[in-house]
């Protein structure tokens, strides 16, 4: 396989069997939201809950909501619906009365005349009445004959190709993820939302973060069953009166009340119990996300089970009904002011074979794709493939490269540079009448001076997750950290220390930085620290890192002219503060007869992992990694040494280093 996938996907991809189902592939091509399998909410849901609430019970959530930048009136929004499994486009929009159609389709034939488009001799499937009505209002573009010109019939590689959306072979990011990389604040997780509980490849970028709204809600939020509502109300009632159990008893009772009140706010948004099938629920949530005006530009939704090899008629009818209802519910939930800023598009990895197999349809090639919205140029685009001129496999011809649709949406709707994002130039379709009016000035944000240079506790926490852990905090993390910091249980120095010592940077990055320090007597570059952190976290050995160190100029300057015993002596004395023991010499001398660098790397790695190495150089490595996280530069070697000496002597604690950097002008200037 020539394609490159994100590293976190590889294990799942490897586990796929010879004939994986669509659902397995989708799972392999999506990032799980939380690998522990519970509490899969992310921050956004909390923010949305707070944003939709009129009365806030917890300060940090109010602050979290304030951290969100609303959309401006010229900003466009894209809702992308993946119809997974290979949608039978011929039956979604087709020439149902045509004799050629009747010849090809026997078991899966759709009756003619239900919802004619009025052009091209085409009709919508009978399960799509609302979409047909919307088409008649000029708000639906049907792009005909869309597909992959290479006619890939494998779910896996076709889906990966559609999701990645590039001219080349890379599958490490998705086309919308790369778009998100280009817009401001997308690394804060507010610009893209997935409403199906996972983050699919097409939304993954290099820098941008996607927030996922999953089905699991906090304790107290699920209120569809009368039994549970009575329970939650009873728990809440603990906080309705003094407990007679002292200050802490009252504090516990208040927490009972607060946690139920806060959870109730989730219902307004997540609404997992609301009516409708899978996609309908997702798009209702999507509309609520837009209504909240928190700056989301891209929303992803998924409807699976289109792989209708058998008994297609019933299943396809069911799925298209959900699609029809979902789009309708989206617009009935959406506040009217947003209607001209939103476009919905569908995609599927391929269509189905033109002729059916007596029960269902097999994998095919091209299919129509829908683009829906008030500013869409309604009607037919592209060209319908001929049902009488099939290719040698009996498949429909591809008339529109799927990347042409992407290019049109990127360039003409989202206002992005399509060529750059797709890595190639594709002819654009005239899918949109116009973009919405240009932006006006947004409202000023609220600030809390306690968290300077950050406006509020949420921004403080988010930035620390980005700096120390390279990830966006999950909602549960944000709540937990926000709470303890906001209410002062942890001071900012303590919070910074906790953030640092709980990070991979501390657990693994310090190994790399220490080895570099030992080998070269100075701090490493920031990029190297992060790379080594990832290497160690994914199981690379210390030898791999040590090999990089011994190939550095600094090592060569120190030891490049030494060989054999001289090299062993000098390295040991420099690194361990004492000449090597006779045993150590006896062990290493024979090894240095050949291949100096390999053995030097192994020796360095081993010295770095000795208790002495790990403890004596610990603080130097800490200082280097803390600088990397907070100032994004290495410290001066002397500065590094001075801090490490203070830490070694216990004269100051890590939290002092962290808070000193936090208060430095240089750190503040990052956020000016």
């Amino acid at each position, binding site marked *: 396989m020539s394609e490159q996938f994100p590293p976190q996907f590889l294990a799942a991809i490897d586990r796929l069997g010879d004939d994986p189902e669509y659902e397995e592939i989708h799972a392999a091509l999506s990032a799980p939201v939380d690998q*522990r399998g*519970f*509490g899969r909410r992310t921050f956004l849901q909390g923010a949305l809950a707070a944003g939709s609430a009129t009365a806030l019970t*917890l300060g940090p959530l109010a602050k979290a909501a304030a951290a969100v930048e609303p959309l401006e009136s010229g900003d466009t929004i894209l809702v992308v619906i993946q119809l997974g499994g290979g949608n039978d486009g011929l039956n979604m929009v087709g020439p149902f009365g045509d004799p050629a159609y009747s010849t090809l389709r026997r078991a899966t034939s759709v009756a003619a005349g239900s919802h004619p488009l009025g052009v091209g001799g085409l009709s919508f499937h009978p399960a799509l009445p609302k979409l047909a009505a919307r088409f008649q209002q000029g708000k639906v573009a049907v792009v005909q004959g869309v597909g992959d010109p290479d006619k890939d019939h494998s779910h896996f590689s076709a889906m990966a190709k559609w999701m990645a959306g590039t001219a080349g072979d890379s599958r490490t990011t998705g086309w919308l993820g790369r778009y998100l990389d280009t817009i401001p604040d997308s690394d804060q997780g507010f610009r893209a939302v997935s409403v199906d509980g996972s983050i699919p490849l097409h939304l993954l970028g290099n820098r941008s973060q996607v927030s996922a709204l999953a089905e699991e809600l*906090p*304790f*107290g939020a699920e209120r569809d069953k*009368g*039994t*549970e509502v*009575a*329970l939650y109300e*009873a*728990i809440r*009632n*603990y906080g309705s*009166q*003094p*407990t*007679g*159990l*002292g200050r*802490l*008893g*009252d*504090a*516990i*009772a208040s*927490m*009972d009340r*607060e*946690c139920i009140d*806060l*959870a109730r706010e989730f219902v307004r948004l997540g609404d997992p119990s609301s009516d409708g099938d899978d996609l309908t629920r997702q798009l209702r949530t999507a509309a609520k996300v837009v209504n909240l005006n928190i700056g989301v530009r891209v929303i992803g939704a998924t409807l699976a089970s289109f792989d209708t090899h058998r008994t297609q008629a019933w299943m396809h009818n069911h799925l298209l009904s959900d699609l029809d209802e979902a789009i309708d519910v989206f617009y009935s939930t959406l506040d009217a002011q947003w209607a001209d800023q939103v476009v919905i598009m569908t995609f599927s990895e391929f269509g189905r074979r033109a002729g059916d197999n007596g029960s269902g349809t097999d994998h095919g090639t091209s299919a129509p794709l829908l683009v829906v919205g008030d500013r869409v140029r309604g009607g037919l685009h592209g060209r319908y493939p001929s049902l009488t001129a099939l290719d040698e496999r009996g498949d429909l011809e591809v008339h529109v490269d799927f990347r042409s649709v992407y290019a049109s949406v990127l360039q003409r709707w989202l206002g992005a540079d399509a060529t750059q994002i797709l890595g190639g130039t594709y002819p654009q379709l005239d899918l949109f009448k116009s973009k919405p009016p240009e932006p006006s000035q947004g409202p000023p944000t609220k600030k809390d001076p306690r968290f300077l240079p950050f406006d509020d506790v949420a921004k403080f926490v988010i930035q620390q997750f980005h700096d120390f852990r390279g990830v966006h905090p999950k909602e*549960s993390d944000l*709540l*937990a950290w926000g*709470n*303890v910091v906001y*209410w002062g*249980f*942890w001071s900012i120095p*303590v919070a910074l220390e*906790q953030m640092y*010592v*709980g990070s991979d940077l*501390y*657990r693994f990055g310090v190994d790399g930085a220490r080895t570099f320090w030992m080998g070269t007597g100075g701090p490493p570059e920031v990029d190297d620290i992060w790379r080594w952190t990832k290497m160690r976290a994914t199981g690379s050995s210390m030898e791999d890192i040590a090999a990089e160190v011994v190939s550095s100029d600094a090592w060569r300057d120190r030891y490049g002219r030494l060989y054999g015993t001289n090299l062993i002596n000098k390295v040991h004395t420099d690194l361990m*503060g004492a000449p090597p023991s006779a045993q150590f010499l006896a062990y290493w001398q024979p090894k240095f007869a050949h291949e100096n660098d390999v053995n030097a790397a192994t020796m360095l790695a081993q010295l770095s992992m*000795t*208790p*002495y190495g*790990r*403890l*004596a150089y*610990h603080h130097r490595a800490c200082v280097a990694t803390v600088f990397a996280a907070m100032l994004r530069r290495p410290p001066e070697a002397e500065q590094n040494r001075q801090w490490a000496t203070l830490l*070694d*002597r*216990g*004269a100051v604690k890590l939290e002092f280093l962290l808070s000193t950097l936090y208060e430095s002008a240089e750190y503040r200037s990052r956020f000016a």
Partner: protein
Amino acid sequence: MFRRLLRSQEHCPPGTDLRPQTTGSLLMAISRSDAAHLLRRSGFGARPADIARLAALPNWEAAVDAVLDTSRAPAATMPPAVGQTMEMWELRIELIKFWIERMRTTPCPIVEKMALFFHGHHFPCSWSKCDEATLAWNQIELFRSFALGDYHQLTQRVAVDPWMLWYLDNGANKAPSRINENFGRELLELFTLGRNNYTEADVVAMSRAWTGHNLSADGLRYQFDAAAHDNGQKTLFGITKNWDGPATITEILKGSKAVPASLFFVAKLWRYLVGTEPSATTTQSLAATFRASGLSLRSLVRAIFLHPDFRGAAARTAVVRSPVDWFVSVTQALDVPATASQPQWWIVPMGQDLFRPPNVGGWGSNEAWLSASGWWRRGECIRWLCYQMVDPSLPYNRFPEIQPDSSPKLVADVTFEAFGIVSPSPATRKVVEDWARSVSGTWHGSSMRYFGMVLVAMSPDFNLG
């Protein structure tokens, strides 16, 4: 917040009789409410059978001696998972389950309660610095074996415990030029004396005294490196001689610093077991008892439990159950083993990651556990456990006496009893009975058997330890 300082540094005049004050009530039979309080503070949950056992004893002293009887404590055992090939995080989950299960089932919970004090509040070490499971577990077993033992010996052993040598860097504290003050400082500041009882010069001398007390080359054992030990004269607490590490501990705990060191430790343990801020008089009298006993932890813990303030009104509501305490107590009440209750799913997001205290100051207490996300997790946990319980295919189906039409009073009585709440506050009883009344005899009545447990597990009464 982690470093609450001892408020009073006054020394006792010599000859003062500082034995714990006894009152008439000591001689009277004990109430079930007192028995439950003692069980909670000396262990985790208060099971009905244990309450009855203590309440049947002739007096409070007998009850205290009963909870301090460690003769049936499980012997030191390496968890079976240690030594098997598995990922580090899986191994830690196994350690968590093993210890939680021991807390839940031991006949002598005071041993685990004290071990948790030493691990989480007094001598914290963390997996984050050294993830060698054997070292971590050996340290817990060290705490267990000294739970009610000789505090001086324990401190000596902790100082050269490999996990501690890693955690506070003394494993690499080498003279002459590579002196590491991390351990020397914390030994003074957090482990023995507290701030204001030593000088910076003492930190330097202390650190020099501990040079050479290092780790073996494989990092798994303590090893004294004579060549790296500083044999020079050092001035510690104004005494100049060739100090060596262990002698400094003896000097602090049994020599010139014995009084402030005992005051410091007594106040710390009092806050853990009683929850209130001890008065100067209380601290002084207990510290004197402690010293007179030769630093016997058993004597000190006994004196604390016998102290009148231990049973006073303020102490009854002075502790918010930590996640570990809450989880162990809940799974005791419901009788669910750790193999099925998945403690790692719950206690970690509630904020108490066993084997990974947040820093050398250990975990916070009380308010530190009160956050919405932590509280959601408590609710999710107990609801999940109850759903496990009502699955008839599982052996945890409990409380058959609660039926869909049971009276509110019966529901309340059975659930309070199961959770060891002997005298619920009127407000809490009213909430539970009102809820039961609203569902009893209705379509929702069958939820009373398990949602009653959820309700009580979330009550202020149960969340106070």
